[in-house]
Every structure is written in structure tokens, then in C-alpha cells.
């Protein structure tokens, strides 16, 4: 069964097509990598699938539900780790989990059990009463993973989850996720710029560029098709070698300013 079905999805901002007639399916229980250079349309696609943006046209189904007609059923079906941190720094790790559990309508007793279980799983149980602002980047990521899994989603979206993490933390994180994929049959949909990561972990890979899917298949298939030894090489052959500029988002600009200010 396909847990994600996307057909002719298009998103236009003004005259610019960020996502251009994209179609793909993800099977239940699959680890699916969604790759592409900066500004290719990865994050926009994820935002559409996760009900944050409305598409200009096209059809899609997540876990059998349409994100436009039935957003709440879709929201219950997926968990997500965003590209940028999305925790409340002024709350403790436990409170961030609690907040999520209440919003997802998880009954009090189950909530308590699962929070403990998940925080132990990501090795943050001892730090549960610390404010998140005291956490390192890797700890925040782990907490976000635990939070995203709290409502037992069927699909787990990870948008560049390993960005800025050291190799130890990265390996640790992927070990968790592979374990979960195996035991809970959870579908993992992720984006990354570390292509070798996708090659090692993903069962299926889609490469998107300029809003269009340019390749879709297993890592092995993509390598063979492009006469490459590595997926990274195939990726570069498919998407070219020009460097893409991405406009700074307001959040990026703000972080820069904040950095300047705190240096004073």
C-alpha cells in the first residue's frame, strides 16, 4: 500500500513555480529520501504535504486522507522534524513534550508513559526538567525526534535532520530511526544534503530540481542509470554543478542580527 500518493502537484508563488507538476508515491514502511539542491522545492513540497501550505493544483493523499479536505486526520498521521529548530526554548524538555501531547489529544495517562519512554529512548530523561535553551544542537534534535513520535505517527517527515550535527550524533540518530522503521513499520520521509547518508539509509530516492522530479528509484538503480560509483556522483550528473543561491528567509536574517547583537 502507498502511504503517500502525490499526483501532478504544483505550487506557484507569483510567476515562480516552486513545485512543478510533481508526482511520486511512497510505500508504507519505506525509508524515502527526497534530495535536491537548495531552492529545488523540497521544503515547499514538505510544507504542502504537512498542511502548512496549500498547493496551486494537484492531488495528494497521506495515509488515505486528503490534506486539504481533511487536515486534522492528516496531522494525526504524521510527525515532523523541521529544518529549523521548533522547540520552545523557555520551556523544559518535558513541558515541550507535554504541550505536544495535549495538542494531539493524547490521554493523560498514556501521555505520561510515552513521554517517559521516548525521553529515555533519546537519552534525555535525566535532563527532562532542564530548559531547552540550555541544550546543545544535537540534544534539541533528539528532543524534536522524540516529540515528533509522541502521537505514534505513521509517517515521519525529517527536513534536513542531520544539518549541523557531528558524525556521532548523526549515526546515533539514524540508528534510532532505522530501529523504529523496523519495529514500528513507520514510514520515514527525509531530505538531506549529505548524499552518502541517503545512499546508505534510503530504500528509495527521489531527486528534485527546479521544482521537477528528475530521478526516482532505489539508490542502486540511480547509480546504474547514470554510470556512477556513488549516489553523490549521480546526483551531480543529474542536477549540474552550478551553485544555487537561496534567498535568506526572515528567520535567517533575524538570527544573523541576533548574533551581531549578542556579540556586543
Amino acid at each position: 500500500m502507498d502511504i503517500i500518493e502525490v499526483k501532478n502537484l504544483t505550487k506557484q508563488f507569483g510567476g515562480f513555480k516552486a513545485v512543478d507538476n510533481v508526482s511520486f508515491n511512497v510505500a508504507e514502511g519505506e525509508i524515502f529520501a527526497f534530495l535536491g539542491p537548495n531552492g529545488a522545492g523540497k521544503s515547499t513540497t514538505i510544507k504542502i504535504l504537512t498542511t502548512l501550505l496549500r498547493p496551486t493544483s494537484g492531488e495528494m493523499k497521506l495515509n488515505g486522507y486528503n490534506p486539504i479536505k481533511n487536515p486534522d486526520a492528516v496531522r494525526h498521521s504524521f510527525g515532523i522534524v523541521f529544518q529549523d529548530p521548533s522547540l520552545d526554548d523557555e520551556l523544559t524538555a518535558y513541558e515541550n513534550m507535554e504541550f505536544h501531547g495535549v495538542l494531539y489529544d493524547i490521554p493523560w495517562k498514556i501521555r505520561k508513559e510515552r513521554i517517559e519512554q521516548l525521553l529515555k529512548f533519546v537519552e534525555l530523561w535525566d535532563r527532562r526538567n532542564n530548559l531547552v535553551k540550555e541544550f546543545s544542537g544535537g540534544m534539541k534534535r533528539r528532543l524534536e525526534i522524540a516529540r515528533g513520535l509522541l502521537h505514534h505517527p505513521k509517517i515521519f517527515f525529517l527536513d534536513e535532520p542531520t544539518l549541523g550535527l557531528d558524525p556521532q550524533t548523526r549515526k546515533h540518530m539514524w540508528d534510532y530511526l532505522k530501529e523504529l522503521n523496523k519495529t514500528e513499520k513507520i514510514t520515514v520521509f527525509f531530505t538531506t544534503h549529505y548524499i552518502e547518508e541517503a545512499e546508505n539509509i534510503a530504500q528509495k530516492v527521489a531527486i528534485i530540481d527546479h521544482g521537477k522530479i528528475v530521478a526516482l528509484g532505489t539508490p542502486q538503480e540511480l547509480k546504474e542509470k547514470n554510470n556512477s560509483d556513488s549516489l553523490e556522483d549521480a546526483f551531480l550528473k543529474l542536477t549540474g554543478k552550478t551553485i544555487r543561491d537561496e534567498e535568506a528567509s526572515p528567520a535567517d536574517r533575524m538570527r544573523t542580527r541576533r548574533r551581531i547583537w549578542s556579540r556586543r
Partner: protein
Amino acid sequence: MVKEIIFKYMSTIYILWIRQLKRYFRSKSRMIGSLAQPLLFLLALGYGFGAVFQKAGEGSYINFLTPGVIGMTIIFTSIFSGMEIIWDRQFGFLKETLVAPVSRFNIMVGRTLGGATVATIQGIIVFLISFIAGFHPYSWALVPVAILVMILVALLFTALGVMIASLLDDMQGFQLIVNFLVMPLFFLSGALFPLEGLPKVIDIIARLDPLSYGIDAFRALLINTSHFGLSTDIAVLSVITLAFLSLGSYFFSKIQI
């Protein structure tokens, strides 16, 4: 079934509300910082103009000023609490709430109640401190009613803050809002001077300023003088609060990340 839906609504609103309160009580610097300004106004203006005010036959300026400074505390705290949404957006937390299976209206209500509660607490703190400066209310029995009006004023301006925050996408516009909206709303509201005998233009502006009615209501309840009359004040405040709450939730529902 209906009971469960109501329970779910209440618990999501509760968790959003309690989050605002926790953030408030944890940031002591913000709490103290936002009390410094009203206290300065109370002391510098209250004592500075006290003698002149008395000579003009208007009675105690501290008594007159205290409702104005309470109004000032509430408008600043509540607009800024509403605008905290910009921070949540910048630092990602807003996304977490927007992908949750909760309606945006619900999120907006929880946040607005949280912000309004914080602003009301600040207003009450300033009210208590004003006793040290020499303020005494006209009737103790009306103090709880005055607190209810504080909640109403706080709701009004928090909803306005949410509305503004939904339209801005970063903090760049913040200073602009402070200088061209919050400051004029405060200074032209009659917080610092009586609304009687003003030049026509100022009079019209004061009548259009919702804070004028809030402060007038505080004066009616705390020192027994009123320019518009208490029932007019309450009616105007209620209508504008409802309007801002609807507009706030409309604009909030249109936010795209």
C-alpha cells in the same frame, strides 16, 4: 461525544494559556523591565505635576494618573504579548502549533487569553505599587470590577497585537509599530491629562482611541470621575474587543509559513 470535544477544546486552550504564563514568570528581567516605565511615569509625572494640578483645582494628580499608568502598563504588555507570535515564527515554534490537529481559531484564543492574563497581572502589580506612591481608591468594593475591566482592555490589545503580528513577518516592523501605534495610542488617550476642554483635533483622536475608554472606565471605578460615562466605556470596549478578536483570528488563520 460533545463532552469530549469540549474537553479537547478546553485542554488545548489551557496548555497554550499556561505556556504564556510560564514564559512570563520565568523571564524575571522582562517582568521587571516592563514595570520600570510605568513606575517612572507615576513618580516623575505624578510628583512633578502634582502641585500644578492641585493649583488648577483638579485635586490629586497621583490619583488621576494611576488609572492612566495602569492603562499604559496593560496596553504595552498586551500588544507585546500578542506580537510574541513573531518570535514564535522566527524561532520555529509556531510551525509546531500549526501542524498540530488543532484549529487556528483555537490557537489564537489560547494565546490571546494567555497574553491578556499576563497583561492583567502586570496591571494589578502597578495598581498595588501605586498605593505606595499615595493612591487610594474611591471605593474598595469597585476594585474587583476595575480588574474585570482590566481583563477586557488586555484582551482588546492582545488581539490587536496578534493581528499586527500576523501581518508582519519579522521584527523589522516592530519599532515602527511602537512609535506610530502604541505610543500615540497611549499619549493621546487621556492617560496623562483630563479629556475636558481639549482642542478639537486632539478631542477627535482621543475619541477614536480605544484606550481612552479603558482609562476612563478605570477612573470611573477607581476615582469616581468619568468623561464618557461608565456604560459608554464598557459598551465601546466590548464591541472593539469582539471586532479585534474576530479580525485577529481571521488574520492569524491566513498566516503562511
